[in-house]
């Protein structure tokens, strides 16, 4: 997969966000197995310790669970995944409104434009 790492933020944080996005989008389905730390690290071209930290973050968010015998899996709890999806969606909406405000559009006006766009499609 493509990894997008920017310069200004810790790498582990960016890795865990991108893995979370893949879980939410279903590339790694609920209850599915995640690749090993080594494989993920080699794929992203990062240090295994950094990838380990990213995966620990996913575990503490409840998106991934560690299983002694089978390695690391995506949680089967779809409520947790839904909540993560909502959180990401909210972040995108916040960014959207901020960008609209930058164009001098109020929230109400932005929502109107959004609805118009929907009708056109």
């Amino acid at each position, binding site marked *: 997969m493509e990894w997008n790492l920017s*310069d200004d933020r810790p790498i582990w944080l960016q890795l865990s966000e991108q893995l979370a996005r893949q879980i939410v989008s279903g590339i790694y389905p609920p209850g599915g197995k995640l690749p090993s730390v080594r494989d993920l690290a080699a794929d992203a071209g990062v240090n295994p310790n950094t990838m380990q930290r990213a995966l620990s973050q996913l575990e503490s968010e409840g998106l991934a669970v560690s299983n002694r015998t089978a390695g690391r899996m995506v949680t089967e709890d779809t409520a947790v995944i839904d909540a993560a999806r909502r959180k990401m969606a909210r972040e995108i909406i916040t960014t959207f409104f901020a960008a609209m405000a930058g164009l001098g559009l109020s929230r109400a006006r932005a929502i109107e434009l959004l609805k118009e766009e929907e009708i056109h499609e």
Partner: protein
Amino acid sequence: MSDLLIQCRGLCKSYGHKSALQGVDLQVDRGRIVGLLGPNGSGKTTLIKILCGLLQPTAGEILVDGQSIGTHSKSVISYLPDRMYFADWMAATDLFDLFHDFYTDFDRQKAIAMCESLGVEPRDKMKTMSKGTKEKVQLVLVMARKAQLYLLDEPIAGVDPAARDFILSTILTNYNEEGSVLISTHLISDIERVLDEAIFLKEGKVILHNSVDNIRETEGKSVDALFREMFRAQTLEGGNF
């Protein structure tokens, strides 16, 4: 077994009047990939050569794996020098034999497998190989050992950017996880994401030693950007324009 793999205290080295290291204090844990970063002439190679036992420090103390530099430290260190030292008439397989005789931790099978994945024919003689291919052979020899400490002096300086990624992934997938890797370079942006820690050397002194994540978190910029800033600021201070 102590967690500290490298311990230096007050390490100094002078070449005649010229002083290359001026009181280096350093501690490196096991299981880390560490970047030894500094401009040309900052003392990177000198420090690595002292760790290998190729140079004697003028003053100060140095321990590797809890012992001073000697037979034991040499048996646990795998060193990639900054220049080639192979005889022309040798094939890579001859070098494998040589390493197999010298180092009990050399894994011949692994060396052959790595050659295959790097696209090197191990039966070719050194004199028929390009510079880049020779560097790959050198890397294979170093990484096919199950060492405690890998000292890599400028492993990516002489190769093109595509081969750099290849070399970095070879290092990442082959190092012994209980050991540490010390990589010296000035090509920071290329290796930043594989590092746990960064050490900045300037004029023979350690001016910064921190984890890459900490640097990014506290400075809000990459190690590469911080490096450029620190070393640019200091050159300007010294000049009277």
